[in-house]
């Protein structure tokens, strides 16, 4: 282990280390803490200039109620759900099929296809902007939830395919062969044997892709107009423009926008980290 395990340290250093941890954490998370505290601060208090002190009276319910009702926050939040959940399912469905094919069939162009999916991860999004807008407009998908979903599915499929292809490649191939000898069709092999085996990888991917799509701002900006289908990232950014002084409301909105990904991260931490580092080390 590196650095030297703490049990072998001098007692004084050990105490210093343990004391430093909460301090470092406090400084590191200060921006988030500030937002949390502000989101429960009353407007009067902000007017008086108490921005950073401890809130005197808690206006949490009022702030969140106002952020939720006086602006279309709930509507944005709901849009985000409508966009994110099908996108995650779609991308993972397409990618698990493609990943299965790329890892178990030998055909010409296999590596080329795989390389294409990998390369898609690194393409700057801006080069896609104008054509994707055009496609969405001509298909009647501009400013619709389905338009955003289709695009996110396509965009995330590259990463998911890379991830799943490498994961499936690690499975014992004899098992797939055995199933084929038993007479199982290709679809049955995929659906009944491979999919259950890669469930941990699917969970890791789902968590990761959820946060990617949930946090997206650029495409929401490009492919939507007005409030109808705008997701919460656009909503919060708009909130700032509207109420630059009402930081307690902006904070409440930001917290709302952050809750699903933060919650998912805390619940599925292991999967999240696996996804992040697996994708990274093989990328």
């Amino acid at each position, binding site marked *: *282990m*590196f650095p030297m*395990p*703490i049990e072998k340290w001098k007692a004084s250093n050990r105490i210093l*280390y343990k004391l430093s*941890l909460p301090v470092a954490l406090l400084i*590191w*998370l*200060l*921006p988030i803490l*500030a937002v949390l505290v502000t989101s429960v601060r009353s407007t009067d208090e902000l007017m008086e*200039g108490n921005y950073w002190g401890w809130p005197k009276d808690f206006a949490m319910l009022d702030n969140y109620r106002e952020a939720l009702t006086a602006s279309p926050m709930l509507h944005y939040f709901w849009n985000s759900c409508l966009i994110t959940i099908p996108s995650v399912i779609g991308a993972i469905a*397409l*990618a698990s099929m*493609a990943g*299965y094919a790329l890892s178990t069939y030998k*055909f010409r162009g296999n590596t080329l*296809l795989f390389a294409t999916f*990998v*390369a898609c991860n*690194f*393409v700057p*999004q*801006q*080069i*896609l*902007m*104008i*054509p994707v807008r055009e*496609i969405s407009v001509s298909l009647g998908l501009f400013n619709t939830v389905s338009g955003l979903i*289709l*695009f996110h*599915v396509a*965009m995330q*499929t590259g990463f998911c395919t890379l991830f799943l292809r490498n994961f499936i490649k690690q499975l014992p191939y004899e*098992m797939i062969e*055995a*199933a084929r000898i*038993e*007479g199982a069709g*290709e*679809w049955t092999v995929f659906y009944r044997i491979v999919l*259950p*085996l890669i469930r*941990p990888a699917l969970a890791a991917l789902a968590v990761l892709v959820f946060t990617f799509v949930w*946090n997206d*701002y*650029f495409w929401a900006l*490009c492919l939507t107009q007005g409030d109808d289908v705008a997701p919460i*990232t656009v909503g919060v*950014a708009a909130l700032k423009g509207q109420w630059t002084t009402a930081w307690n409301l902006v904070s409440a909105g*930001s917290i709302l*926008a*952050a809750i699903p*990904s*933060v919650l998912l*991260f805390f619940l599925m931490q292991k999967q999240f980290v696996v996804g*992040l580092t697996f994708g990274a*080390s093989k*990328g």
Partner: protein
Amino acid sequence: MPAQTPVITPARPQPSDLAAASKPRRRSTASRRNRAAIWFLAPACLMTAVYVLYPIFYTIYLSFFNWDGMMKPEFIGLANYVEMLHAPTFHVALKNNLTWLLLFLLAPPAGLIAALYLNQKVRGIRLIKTLFFAPFVLSGVVVGLIFSWFYDPTFGLLTLLLGHGVPVLGDPRYVTFGIIFAALWPQTAYCMILFLTGLTSINADQVEAARMEGAKGWSMLRYVILPQLRSTTFMAFVVTIIGALRSFDLISVMSSGGPFESSTVLAYYTYDQAIKYYRQGYSAAIAVTLFAIMLIYIVYQLRRLLRDER
């Protein structure tokens, strides 16, 4: 492999299966499998072709046209590129991209330091590691908002710390640095998690052996640990470089490229020209330039990947 992985017990062969298996299969196996591969790949390939590959080529094509998005596009050859090379904003964007790149490269070492600092077994360390990583999960919009507020010259935390207001986001001299600083926060968290994972796979015997030899602290890190972390380090640098070139959300939320377009980068400049000024062809030319810069990393990555495949 986690415990929930099901053990595969092949179902009892059904009569129909046996019939299928006993038929001559010479003829069909190869072609049937090829057909299956096509069906499995078709949806993903179709989506990627429509939404990623075609747009890349279309944007390259479009970069040779003058087009406002409505009238008929007019072919103008390289004029967009020529104009771009002479545009002061393009130079500002390029310079800012370079600044982003250089300063963003602080994230891997900072992440390594954080990882080394947290790589101890004490009570509650898991929770602390988790909390340290939390900023990475936040949306760029939220991080942007938090830091805009942090920098506010009348009441922001920075003002409070310094004792006087500095309009970080309103001053062309500071704005880019202010935004990069905000972006480093989640990026350092990301690098930290990569290094923490890398550290767990370090060969303990080697570390012990080196320790016997008297290696410790810096020399241990330099000669024993870092060589073992090479692939992690490489990855941390790649995701950081790509992240630096991609920067858009924070700039959009914190400064909209301003003041006076002083904090714009190629990604934001592309967006700005297409959406605000309806200059699709010109915007395409900037996007192609950004793509060309990123292609260096894409090709490098692919070559590495294909080498590993062999």
